[in-house]
């Protein structure tokens, strides 16, 4: 087993292990911090797939933005000093059955489908290619994305502000 294969197994183990803590932990703080492992692990998987720019974006936005936002929300809505279970779960057994069947069907589909493969798999820097695509083929979605982000920004401020009653 080469070093890169070993690193791949490690990254996958970190990703799926932290995702399991997110799904099964009884404490919401543990769940929120485990998201860090999942997001960073997914960034590692992107690097194994030769997607360097997406990996960097994943780290910047998920780890640097969304995770911090989630932690803020957890800490603003809970009294941290409470030891009681803050992450109650309901209907675990039926959900486990449903999810087990789902993962079996998905794995079976993955195994039995004859995926078309590229003739040669290249590992090259993708940033320049992505920049070209954003300003050429995907220009309209790119500009719409900025509008969506602006709307989300204003919407978040409007929803979460305290109303001052006169």
């Amino acid at each position, binding site marked *: 087993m080469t070093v890169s*294969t070993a690193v791949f197994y490690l990254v*996958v183990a970190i990703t*799926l292990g932290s995702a*399991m803590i*997110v*799904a099964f932990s009884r404490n*919401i703080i543990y*769940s*929120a911090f485990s*998201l860090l492992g*999942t*997001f960073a692990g*997914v960034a590692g998987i*992107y690097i*194994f*797939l030769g*997607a360097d*720019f*997406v990996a960097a*974006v*994943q780290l910047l*936005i*998920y780890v640097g*933005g*969304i995770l911090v*936002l*989630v932690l803020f*929300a957890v800490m*603003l*809505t809970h009294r941290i000093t409470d030891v009681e279970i803050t992450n*109650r*779960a*309901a*209907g675990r057994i039926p*959900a486990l059955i*449903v*999810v087990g069947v*789902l*993962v079996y069907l*998905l*794995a079976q589909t*993955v195994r039995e489908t004859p*995926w078309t493969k*590229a003739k040669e*798999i290249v590992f090259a820097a*993708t940033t320049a*290619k*992505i920049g070209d*695509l*954003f300003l050429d083929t995907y220009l309209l979605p790119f500009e719409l*994305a900025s509008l*969506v*982000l602006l*709307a*989300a920004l204003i*919407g*978040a*401020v409007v*929803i*979460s502000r305290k109303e001052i009653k006169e």
Partner: protein
Amino acid sequence: MAPGFSPNELSSYLVIGAILFSLGVFTVLTRRNAISVLMGVELILNSANINYVAFSHFGSGNADGQIYAIFVIMLAAAEAAVGLAIVLAIFQLFHTIEVEAAETLKE
């Protein structure tokens, strides 16, 4: 590890995506806490992104899948901002973020 599970196989990435998706669905189904439900949604979006990038790498060879992954990440950021703002508003109104408590549209 199962045979054929290696960094050079498309199917191993698809299986990782499938497991991550299932864990996300499990989180969304079982949690009563609104923030935990949002965490499950993030897991689901990440699993979809892994599939996009994996198909982009092994299948087509061009960067279109990566572009879609970036758009998904962008929408996830917008969703997290608005979703957590709604959670904070619900907390101010009901003093809890259990999803079952917030079943009325007004105070």
